[in-house]
């Protein structure tokens, strides 16, 4: 055997060993993929509630019932893949009907308490799916049922591919693949219940001025995600909303009676109020109606100029303690050869939320 043949022999052995290693690692990775069985690490259940806005449209050839069932099952599968024990869907539905939970901002403390005590649900994933022409906006919030704390927030927007029934591919429809991938991205890894915080901070849902409600909701989720990322501990915004509404007051009417109610009920001393103001002259405050009356109304997912502001309000006095406002009016960036660099509205909202926190944070120099 010449030297070359010996080296080739060595290479083939090395290749075989490497191939075996890759195969073993590949099997391990495949087992760890979301959706497959993992040993449960949670000692109680995680429930899922989904609210759907918009309606199935051309790019989404599916009825609402099927869309709901598919999305819930995908979210549950994604949760199981991340170590959660998912609760029985019928049990959750029963509680939703009992407490008349009609929207993602209407999660009451009593509903959470009963979910925890009667159904052993430790956390509830509140998801909203907005379908708009050829687009999804999927948002999720994970709420700890014992404390009402918001422990995780995420959101994703996805463009749907063009759909033509004559040329639709055989097999799994494209929208299912897209939805499945989106669901995998917006659920958290299971984590033990959070330790009680020293002080309860409340947060109100973001107020939108001259902006579409869907965009305001996206801005709110983006802001809450930033706040959680900065280590802030706060109750889910829907708790304040529901408590005020049940007492006959809009949630933003922080009059003495409303403030006292929030203090007595949650032991909170401060509340965070945020605003999104659109200065976009081209996009009116409501969804644009397409020129063709048969076409459904669509949301214009662009804001060229907007501001986000945030202030902390003292619940004892009703006065603002700290505030910050950030304006976003950057023109689209240009890349190589003058090509515009495309950023999505969600990316812009996320960047503005982070800039707002930087201006608002007690560590910032301006404050």
């Amino acid at each position, binding site marked *: 055997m010449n030297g070359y043949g010996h080296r080739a022999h060595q290479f083939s052995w090395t290749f075989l060993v490497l191939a075996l290693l890759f195969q073993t690692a590949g099997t391990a990775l495949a087992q760890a993929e979301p959706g497959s069985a993992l040993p449960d690490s949670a000692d109680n259940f995680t429930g899922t509630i989904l609210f759907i806005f918009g309606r199935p449209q051309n790019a989404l050839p599916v009825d609402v019932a099927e869309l709901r069932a598919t999305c819930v099952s995908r979210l549950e599968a994604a949760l199981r893949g991340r170590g959660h024990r998912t609760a029985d869907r019928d049990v959750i539905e029963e509680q939703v009907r009992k407490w008349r939970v009609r929207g993602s901002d209407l999660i009451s403390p009593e509903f959470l308490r009963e979910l925890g005590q009667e159904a052993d649900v430790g956390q509830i994933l509140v998801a909203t799916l907005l379908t708009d022409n050829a687009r999804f906006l999927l948002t999720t919030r994970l709420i700890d049922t014992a404390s009402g704390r918001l422990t995780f927030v995420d959101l994703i927007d996805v463009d749907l591919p063009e759909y033509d029934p004559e040329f639709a591919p055989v097999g799994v429809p494209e929208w299912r693949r897209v939805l499945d991938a989106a669901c995998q991205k917006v659920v958290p890894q299971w984590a033990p219940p959070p330790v009680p915080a020293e002080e309860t901070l409340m947060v109100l849902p973001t107020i939108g001025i001259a902006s579409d409600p869907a965009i305001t909701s996206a801005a709110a989720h983006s802001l809450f995600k930033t706040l959680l990322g900065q280590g802030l501990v706060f109750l889910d915004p829907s708790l304040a909303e529901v408590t005020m509404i049940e007492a006959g007051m809009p949630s933003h*009417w*922080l*009059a003495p009676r*409303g403030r006292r109610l929030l203090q007595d009920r949650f032991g909170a001393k401060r509340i965070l109020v945020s605003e999104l103001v659109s200065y976009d002259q081209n996009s009116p405050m409501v969804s644009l109606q397409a020129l063709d009356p048969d076409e459904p109304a669509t949301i214009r997912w662009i804001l060229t100029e907007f501001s986000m502001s945030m202030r902390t309000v003292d619940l004892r*006095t009703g006065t603002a303690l700290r505030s910050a*406002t950030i304006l976003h009016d950057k023109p689209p960036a240009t890349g190589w050869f003058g090509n515009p660099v495309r950023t999505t509205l969600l990316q812009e909202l996320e960047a503005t939320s982070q800039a707002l926190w930087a201006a608002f944070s007690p560590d910032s120099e301006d404050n």
Partner: protein
Amino acid sequence: MRKMWNSAAMALVMLAFVSGCSPKATSFVRDDVDYSFIRTVAIFPFQNLSQDINANERLHSVFVSQILERDAVAVVEFGTVLSAMSQMQLTVDSVLTPEQIMELGKVMSVDGIFFGSVEEYGIERLSKDRTYSITASYSLAETQTGSMVWSAQTRTDGGSFWRKLFGGGSASLYSVSKNNVNQALETLF
């Protein structure tokens, strides 16, 4: 040669003069009021006389931000004002009597109430240049007697001498709003 230098100097003086001609607020400030007693204020919803249906809310938001940024007075949350208005059955367009202002002050526990009215808001189409223009008036009433102690009217636009000279579009609507509010507040704080 001397003539040329004189002309150049004159042109520079004119340039400085023209560029310094920024619009100013027309204001009234009562001299017999000690403003240090006004520690907590509320900001009433602004009236909207313009054609943009969101003008008052946008300008109100900027006004709140600028007042808070100055850190001169404590500001009660807007919801408190809405709640008090509902309690007293007042609307944005209500013309308040001094008694009502005093009553509002008691309900909200504030020393002063700011009012505002947006008269013009949006793109000005009089000239070839499309610039944003805002005209608004603001006032402050103290709640002990219900009397007006400060009032200002300002007009700002997004154009400037330098923008016209070197090109460029109008300043953003937010910037024009912020300038408008700041010019008014400068006459008070």
